[in-house]
């Protein structure tokens, strides 16, 4: 009954490889997000989707490509992995703030620790 789930939890791979991280939420939310957390715990948004449509795309290399097959899923594919991609990636979801006046609370998944060697 996990609200936001991610797979895998750990991912160790070599430079140049392509990898994907999957995320699913069962909260019925319309909006999903990907965040990157660096080694100093700094959290920064990468992408956001609303009803399968990309609405936030921060300055992220083209090697990162999110895909949302439906509003409950948001996957992140990374091509040609680099050492600097090593981080913890968090998926999150929230209600659409335009629909009401929700608190803006986002529900985060457990994170995927990506290590590029």
């Amino acid at each position, binding site marked *: 009954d996990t609200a*936001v789930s991610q797979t895998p939890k750990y991912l160790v791979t070599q430079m140049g490889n392509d990898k994907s991280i999957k995320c699913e939420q069962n909260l019925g939310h319309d909006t999903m*997000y990907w965040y990157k957390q660096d080694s100093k715990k700094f959290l920064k*948004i990468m992408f956001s989707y*609303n009803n399968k449509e990309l609405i*936030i795309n921060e300055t992220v290399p083209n090697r990162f490509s999110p895909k949302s097959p439906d509003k409950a899923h948001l996957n992140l594919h990374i091509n040609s992995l680099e050492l600097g991609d090593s981080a913890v990636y968090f998926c*999150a979801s929230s209600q659409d*703030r*335009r629909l009401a006046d929700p608190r*803006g609370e*986002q529900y985060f998944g457990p994170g995927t620790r990506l290590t590029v060697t």
Partner: protein
Amino acid sequence: GESVGLHLPTLSVQEGDNSIINCAYSNSASDYFIWYKQESGKGPQFIIDIRSNMDKRQGQRVTVLLNKTVKHLSLQIAATQPGDSAVYFCAEPPRIKAAGNKLTFGGGTRVLVKP
């Protein structure tokens, strides 16, 4: 531009004492703040929020204070327990409501509870 930041990167506190975590922001028009708690190996979790029309908001063992004059907010944890050991973030959503909710996070403060 908007930014949300923290004063103390690490706070060591004796079990049973009160903890105070600080956060500064730069945009005087900011009107809503959220505190998140991130335990080791887990994602951030909502603790409490506060709107700018309030100076104080209380939850269970937590109180958030907002000082708009100096653009500062703090999270107070009463009778800190071992389970409070975590990294705490203040965060701010954009003022304009949009489908997305681009949270801007502060740098985080690690709270270590000593037995």
